[in-house]
């Protein structure tokens, strides 16, 4: 990140866009007054909030006027129960106890969490945790809201409701808003000012949204930045289902992590080779659980799962990795080596090793540039593509992806889509659990929704 200059008037909103790895999150942390005081880094130039320089002796008090939501909602919940977590920010800002007791339930209700006061934060679903993080940031009526991908874990209705809420705040001019968001259709209408960053972190363009779209469109597109008026589906569909026996099959599957608290009940799903299936469903509907069942990481409580005629939970790891591939929702939890290259080559046959570089390059992670980096230092979008490369390289017959497009810029998305589509055309069965309706449309095959623990074909 380098050479950024801008003035943001009170009550106005700034949208920060840029390709994956361009420093959007770093900028958000700096604006939130956390660099270098709490987060590592060096700040050059001048960053002032309301005339007070960030990073100085008054930083603690300054931060108290800012509401921040980071990318990963789970790691920013501090307290054990929802109400205490919302109150935590109010305590830090010196609210009197009676005012806190009135504000906490209201803030929860505004985030769509009415009645969640006593719920344990660790037991909430990803979408609910995101809502709680938002409730905590909004509760103290901050003068500045810094939001880093706030809709990432929300289902489409939840994301829409959040965008409407942000629009209300913006109309009332009660808070200045700095927003980092890939979902252009939601974010651009909210912005007074858009700052586009180039891949190296330098400013590419700065201006009103309409002005940027008319004057800088080619530059933004070339940088791989999502624009609000992209066609959907993005690329014309080519894949088509092939008749034939199913490669992967779940029959009448029930699953419960704890007795009596069922996640899935009577799930039926058959996937033919050469098909792409988008698995949709609201937050907490069991998409990730279904994904893990299909590749044999979980065993159904009742019913059967078959991949290539075998029970995937009983296949030896060596064979399983070539039978089925699975990309988890949280890529950091799948890194097994200290470098990108080491992680990619882990457990590969010599034959697979020779094509590993090509797979990584097709996903925009050339080993020459990224190979020696620690996978944890990659940006969110890059991490996700790296964990996809680790699975694609073995050419499994069934490929199960959990939220593969989250945090991807337009170029990353295109590379990922092209590769996944090529695999589908080669006869791979692909299942993608996703909230991304664009990816569902682009994957072009079937759409299956999870509702009440079972599957329903097609969009509502």
């Amino acid at each position, binding site marked *: 990140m380098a050479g950024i200059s801008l003035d943001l008037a009170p009550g106005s909103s700034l949208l920060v866009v840029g390709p994956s790895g361009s420093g959007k999150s770093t900028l958000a942390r700096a604006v939130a007054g*956390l660099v270098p*005081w*709490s*987060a590592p880094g060096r700040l050059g130039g001048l960053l002032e909030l309301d005339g007070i320089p960030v990073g100085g002796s008054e930083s*603690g*008090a300054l*931060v*108290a006027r800012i509401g*921040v939501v*980071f990318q*990963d909602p*789970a*790691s*920013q*919940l*501090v*307290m*054990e129960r929802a*109400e*205490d977590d919302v*109150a*935590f*920010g*109010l*305590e*830090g*800002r*010196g609210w*009197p*106890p009676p005012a*806190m007791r009135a504000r906490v339930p209201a803030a929860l209700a505004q985030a769509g969490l009415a009645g969640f006061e*006593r*719920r344990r*934060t*660790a*037991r909430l679903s990803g979408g609910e945790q995101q809502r709680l993080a938002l409730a*905590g940031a909004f509760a103290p009526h901050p003068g500045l809201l810094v939001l880093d991908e706030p809709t990432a874990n929300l289902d489409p209705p939840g994301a829409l409701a959040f965008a409407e809420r942000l629009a209300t705040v913006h109309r009332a001019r009660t808070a200045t808003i700095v927003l980092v968001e890939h979902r252009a259709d939601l974010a651009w209408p909210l912005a007074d000012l858009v700052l586009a960053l180039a891949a190296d972190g330098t400013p590419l363009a700065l201006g009103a949204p309409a002005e940027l779209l008319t004057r800088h469109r080619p530059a933004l597109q070339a940088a791989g930045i999502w624009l609000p008026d992209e066609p959907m589906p993005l690329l014309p569909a080519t894949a088509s289902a092939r008749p034939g026996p199913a490669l992967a099959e779940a029959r009448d599957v029930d699953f419960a*992590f704890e007795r009596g*608290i069922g996640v899935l009940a009577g799930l039926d799903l058959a996937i033919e080779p050469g098909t792409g299936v988008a698995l949709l469903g609201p937050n907490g509907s069991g998409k990730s659980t279904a994904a*893990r069942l299909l*590749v044999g*990481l979980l065993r159904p409580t009742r019913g059967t799962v078959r991949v290539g005629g075998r029970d995937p939970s009983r296949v030896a*790891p060596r*064979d*399983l*990795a*070539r039978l089925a*591939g*699975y990309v*988890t929702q949280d890529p*950091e*939890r*799948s*890194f*097994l*080596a200290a470098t990108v290259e080491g992680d990619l080559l*882990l*457990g590969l046959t010599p034959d697979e090793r020779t094509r590993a570089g090509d797979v990584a390059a097709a996903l925009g992670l050339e080993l020459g540039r990224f190979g020696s980096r620690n996978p*944890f230092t990659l940006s969110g979008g890059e991490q996700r593509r790296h964990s996809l490369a680790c*699975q694609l390289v073995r050419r499994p017959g069934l490929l199960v992806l959990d939220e593969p497009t989250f945090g991807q810029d337009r170029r990353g998305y295109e590379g990922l889509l092209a590769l996944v589509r090529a695999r589908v055309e080669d006869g791979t069965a692909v299942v993608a659990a996703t909230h991304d309706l664009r990816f569902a449309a682009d994957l072009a095959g079937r759409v299956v929704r999870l509702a009440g623990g079972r599957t329903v074909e097609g969009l509502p």
Partner: protein
Amino acid sequence: MIAVPGRADRVATSLLGRANPLATLAIAIAWLLALATTTDLRPPLLVAAVAIAAALTLGRVPPADLARGLAPLWLAALSVGFFNALLSPANADPAATVVLALGPLRLTEPALAAGLALGLRVVAIVAVGVAWGRITDPTHLTDALVQQGRLPERFAYGALAALQAIPWLAEDLVALREARRMRGLRASWHPRVLVGLLVLAIRRGDRLALAMDARGFSAPGRTRYREVRWAALDAVVVLAGLVVLAGIVALR
């Protein structure tokens, strides 16, 4: 996932749940210290029984919950009692009455009594500890430690946050082992898995600290959402605990 909010709230609104956790902690410690002064068999049994009964009635802890917490108790008490009896120097005393002889092994009456006393002590310690753990809400305890115990806030709330991270650690472990399986490797205790676990824990700690600061944790003039004060109830709880203790000691 479906949470069960009712269960924890039942305990939190119970008589012992409302009492200051430091008051119940003081009673628990007093009981255990008093046990150290006697080798009698009856006091530890009575202390354990009173602790369990109080948790069930005054603390409204669901019996199944308490039973789960107490499960390791029997094994611990049995093994401590058994090995102390077996390895007791009293077994070497030729004058002692032999209860059991198996080849070179002798089990004498005084050794058996000593083992039993120790085993029952373990029963009492575990029962009191588990009962206190079940009636105590971690957030309530932390608030009391900060407000009455004068513990530094940063340390206390940091520790509370770390406590919540333990389930995350378990999930990280599952995820890392699954990742190995999906790469065609055995999901064993490979050192790499443990390194990964450590890396994830450190990163989570970093983010948590950042999130706490971002929400004004270090700002001056912090107020309190839950004020914990000494109340008449706490005096009653402490007094009742001491009366019960005196009764048990007098009974022997």
